């Protein structure tokens, strides 16, 4: 496909080099570290643009692959390599774009932070790992980078490690991810055992021939564990809201746009496996749909701006996973792309607000920011409109295609669920907007607009949120779907009635929020009191965290008690028993040593007699 693409391996490598440089040499010079990091990701961005332009001007089916044998054993070959196809090219664009914008934004947001050099080092290694994950051509490599991004997430969530809540959140993220990764690894191992190769191209050729569903189903379910952990689906969703302890640019990059999308990307990559197993697809769709509804319901009552956005991310990830499950892989990837843009925008704008208010995150303590921070406010509104799915912004196109996939695929229940979630999404986003940006000023006297280094990325992302949807819209040839597809993915013709219905739902949600929170037709207080039980349930996130804590306590304590019993009774018992045996046999045998030589002589002759008898026996039985 040309020389540009053969240099594609540089895309992940440059940020890694930046990390090495900063980590080894430039640690003392924060500004220099920032420059190196941003240059690296900028270079990766440019190279990604070139690669993408090459890919999207060519044949959708052509693939560039380059690999190096890394491990070879009888029965298993593992490579390290690069796979560039349209799917990878899209992800490269999305990741490098958002990463570049976030790093530039961080120059302003993290200014003055004593750990600035480390921050950019971590940003670089994260970018490198995420890009390495994207271009991986086999399960082994993807797993390695999967774990690496998990580690980077840990480092960045716990960046302000002086705060105990940050430390706990980082550990929680890592451990929850590990549980998902455990299942993921088991799935990979089974693949390795059964097929002897982990390479995507090889497997995608062999799996459609392999008709043993009783083997493929567990593999698919196990592989799905990875996305459940990484993309924070129920029941492993608990780490994402707490991950908001990290700096806001980190939340934007990792926990909205890229790392959490890695799970969705994996399902797209491994679609040839999942699409063979209908039960697995159903499971995926149900988990995604449930998560979407579950998270949206919690977002309705949250008061922290970042938490609202976090639950919104959970909900949208649920959408994407659900899309994968109903076979609309194209729609899922499309939504991944648009979501990266508008969710990244929303987080960065929220960061702008927090930065201006010197750390305030409670929306009830904001208000009236529209006048003081116009760029932030209006970019936030654009992002929220995109998220709510108002045409012609990007979110409308992608969300609509997911709903179409559910409806046309026969999953009417999921379609209704998705529509309900769309309504709730619009509602809670505009609840946030009316409370924080318009309305009465509750504390924002000192707020002022953020510097251009922060508002610049906001504007860029706002533009992207507005126009990026058109690459996937039916009236522009659906270029996206043309390139991003997979065997087993379903495509449905556009359905105008669905589009109209979803638009109306979005507007209805916005309208309801306007009535309650702007016009105060029904004061929020009264609603809260009237539905107080439900309100408490939602506010406390359905008490899932408490349940997990109780579960951990029970399991760990009972396990510890069992092991202690084993240690005391069995292990100690064996050792003590051995000692006791030795002692008592010694005590018994003592009496053989009575000091009389003649007794000893008897023992000797006794032995001789026994030997004699034995020999005679052999001889006699031989003779007779």
């Amino acid at each position, binding site marked *: 496909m040309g020389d540009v693409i053969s240099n594609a391996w540089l895309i992940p490598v440059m940020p890694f080099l930046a990390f090495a440089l900063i980590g080894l040499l430039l640690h003392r010079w924060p500004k220099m570290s920032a420059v190196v990091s941003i240059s690296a990701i900028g270079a990766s961005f440019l190279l990604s643009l070139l690669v993408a332009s090459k890919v999207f001007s060519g044949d959708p089916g052509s693939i560039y692959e380059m690999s190096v044998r890394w491990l070879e054993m009888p029965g298993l070959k593992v490579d390290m390599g690069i796979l560039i196809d349209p799917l990878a090219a899209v992800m490269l664009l999305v990741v490098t774009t958002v990463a570049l914008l976030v790093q530039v934004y961080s120059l302003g947001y993290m200014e003055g932070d004593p750990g600035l050099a480390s921050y950019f080092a971590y940003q670089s290694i994260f970018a490198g790992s995420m890009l390495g994950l994207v271009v991986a051509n086999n399960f082994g490599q993807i797993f390695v980078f999967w774990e690496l991004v998990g580690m980077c997430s840990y480092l960045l969530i716990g960046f302000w490690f002086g705060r105990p809540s940050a430390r706990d959140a980082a550990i929680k993220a890592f451990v929850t991810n590990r549980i998902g990764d455990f299942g993921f690894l088991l799935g990979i191992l089974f693949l390795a055992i059964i097929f002897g190769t982990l390479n995507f191209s090889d497997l995608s050729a062999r799996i459609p021939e392999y008709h043993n569903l009783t083997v493929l189903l567990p593999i698919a379910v196990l592989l799905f564990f990875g996305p459940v952990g990484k993309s924070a689906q129920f029941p492993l969703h608990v780490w994402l809201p707490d991950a908001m302890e990290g700096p806001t640019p980190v939340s934007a990059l990792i926990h909205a746009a890229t790392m959490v999308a890695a799970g969705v990307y994996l399902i797209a990559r491994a679609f040839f496996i999942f699409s063979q197993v209908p039960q697995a697809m159903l499971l995926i769709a149900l988990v995604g749909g449930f998560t979407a509804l579950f998270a949206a319901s919690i977002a309705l009552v949250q008061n922290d701006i970042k938490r609202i956005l976090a639950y919104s991310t959970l909900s949208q990830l649920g959408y994407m996973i659900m899309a994968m499950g109903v076979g609309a892989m194209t729609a899922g990837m499309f939504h991944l792309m648009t979501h990266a843009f508008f969710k990244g925008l929303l987080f960065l704008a929220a960061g702008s607000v927090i930065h201006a208010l010197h750390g305030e995150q409670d929306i009830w303590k904001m208000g009236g920011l529209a006048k003081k921070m116009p760029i932030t406010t209006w970019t936030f509104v654009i992002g929220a409109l995109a998220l709510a799915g108002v045409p012609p912004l990007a979110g409308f196109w992608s969300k609509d295609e997911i709903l179409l996939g559910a409806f046309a695929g026969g999953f009417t229940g999921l379609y209704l669920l998705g529509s309900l979630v769309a309504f709730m999404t619009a509602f809670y986003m505009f609840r946030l907007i009316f409370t924080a940006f318009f309305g009465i000023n509750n504390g924002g006297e000192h707020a002022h607009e953020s510097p251009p280094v922060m508002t610049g990325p906001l504007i860029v992302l706002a533009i992207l949120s507005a126009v990026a949807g058109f690459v996937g819209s039916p009236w522009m040839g659906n270029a996206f779907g043309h390139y991003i597809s997979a065997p087993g993915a379903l495509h449905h013709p556009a359905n105008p009635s669905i589009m109209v219905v979803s638009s109306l739902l979005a507007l209805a949600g916005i309208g309801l929020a306007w009535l309650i929170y702007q016009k105060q037709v029904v004061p929020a207080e009264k609603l809260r009191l009237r539905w107080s039980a439900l309100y408490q349930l939602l506010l406390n996130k359905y008490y899932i965290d408490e349940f997990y804590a109780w579960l951990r306590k029970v399991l760990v304590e009972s396990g510890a008690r069992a092991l202690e019993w084993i240690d005391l009774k069995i292990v100690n018992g064996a050792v003590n028993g051995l000692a006791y045996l030795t002692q008592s046999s010694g005590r018994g045998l*003592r009496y053989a*040593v*009575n*000091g*009389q*030589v*003649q007794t000893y*002589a*008897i023992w000797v*002759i006794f032995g001789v007699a026994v030997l004699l008898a034995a020999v005679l026996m052999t001889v006699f039985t031989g003779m007779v």
Partner: protein
Amino acid sequence: MIGLNHYLLLGTALFGIGLYGVFAKRNAIGLLMSIELMLNAVNINFVAINRFLQPGAATGQLFAIFVIVVAAAEVAVGLALIISIYRQRQSVDINDFNLMKW
């Protein structure tokens, strides 16, 4: 006809008697004497076998000579031991030599 078997039986009988003496004597010197009996029985065996199975070579007799040498040395040392123990304990009763009792 007297053959090898008879001499071997003689040796066995002497050996058994000596063996009984080892267990049945209380006097340490009596013990030593019984051991001498056993050694003599062994010598008879050597010589008898040599005479009947390989008369042209005197290997059996040679062995018997060495046995005599060693037995003599052993008697000397053993008696010296008994005498020195007698000096300590004023007794040659074997049941009294029980320092190795636990």
